[in-house]
């Protein structure tokens, strides 16, 4: 219960903490989350995964802000991004932050994977976390590919055209995948709707679930011993 000692802030904090502790056993939950020690061998090479997560948070925030103004149709897409760039307060900054952080995020995923690979941190019992991580890598790259089309500039159009042709030359299922991606035979409104749905609904749900699993497994299994 709230103590008699301490200044008003400390007593208020204790009262709030007690409130949640009595109802949800919060002190135990918090101490399980943050009460552990970090092994002594952890050095700066271990920060890439965390930076990837930070980049994801920046992408979620700036992405939501961009979604307020962006229009996913062939007619409106380019002009709505132009509107963001020219009229919306801090629009240039938010869009540039989103684009730069996308690149940083992919770079950090790659560096994180290399760190885990060369420390052999994937070795049993952590194989499943490595597998989740590989799926997260491909999810992140797909984020990049789907987001690239959305501004509907020359780069967007031709990168998507070339990319979908490459997917289309996959053995056996190529043409089906290409038709599914484009929503037809060429880049049109259907393509933009699909890429937008993939970019702002499907992939965010997928990455959130995968990140949850990834972090739960790290907390349960701990950081791998050095080789």
């Amino acid at each position, binding site marked *: 219960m709230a103590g008699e000692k301490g200044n008003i802030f400390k007593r208020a904090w204790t009262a709030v903490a007690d409130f949640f502790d009595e109802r949800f056993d919060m002190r135990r939950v918090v101490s399980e989350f943050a009460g552990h020690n970090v092994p002594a061998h952890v050095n700066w090479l271990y920060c890439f995964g965390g930076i990837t997560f930070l980049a994801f948070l920046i992408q979620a925030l700036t992405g939501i802000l961009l979604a307020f103004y962006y229009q996913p149709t062939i007619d409106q897409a380019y002009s709505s991004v132009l509107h963001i760039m020219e009229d919306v307060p801090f629009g240039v900054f938010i*869009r540039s*932050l989103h684009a730069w952080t996308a690149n940083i995020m992919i770079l950090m995923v790659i560096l994180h994977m290399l760190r885990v690979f060369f420390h052999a941190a994937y070795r049993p019992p952590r194989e499943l976390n490595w597998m989740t991580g590989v799926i997260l890598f491909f999810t992140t790259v797909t984020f990049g590919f789907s987001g690239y089309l959305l*501004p509907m500039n*020359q780069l967007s159009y031709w*990168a998507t055209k070339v990319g979908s042709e490459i997917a289309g030359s*996959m053995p056996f299922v190529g043409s089906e995948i290409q038709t599914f991606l484009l929503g037809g035979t060429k880049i049109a409104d259907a393509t933009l709707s699909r890429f937008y749905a993939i970019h702002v609904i499907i992939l965010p749900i997928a990455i959130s679930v995968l990140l949850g699993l990834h972090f739960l497994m790290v907390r349960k299994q701990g950081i791998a011993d050095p080789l």
Partner: protein
Amino acid sequence: MQMADQTQRNQDSHQEGGVPFFPDHFIKEMSVVALVLAIVSFLATLMPMPMGAPADPLKTPVGIKPEWYFLTVYQILKYVPRNIGIAFTFLIFPPFLMLFPLFYNSVITRFKYGRLILHTAGALGVITAIFFTMLAYLGFE
């Protein structure tokens, strides 16, 4: 059973040596957060994303390249038959990358230099990827 012991041992080792996650490690993490926020804000302010010309299906731009993380695949596809390159990139490489840790105990550590060979192969893969990315960046055909 052995695996459960290993997991338990890892959890125990966290409680013994090392530094407390909070506040010691957490302060370091927050300083990295501040640094990353500073770097991306710096980049976004000084090098804002250009708008580019609107998409025009009738006008193919010259010398366009995919984003840097696709350059390795893009460059390799210039040298190998497309369906073989695609099959490797989408159907062979991802499952291999995902599943190789399953064979760590049964195959990789069975040989004396198993892990050395695996890591050398990995390092060669990284060097190859950087090499092809540079070739693509410089526009080699």
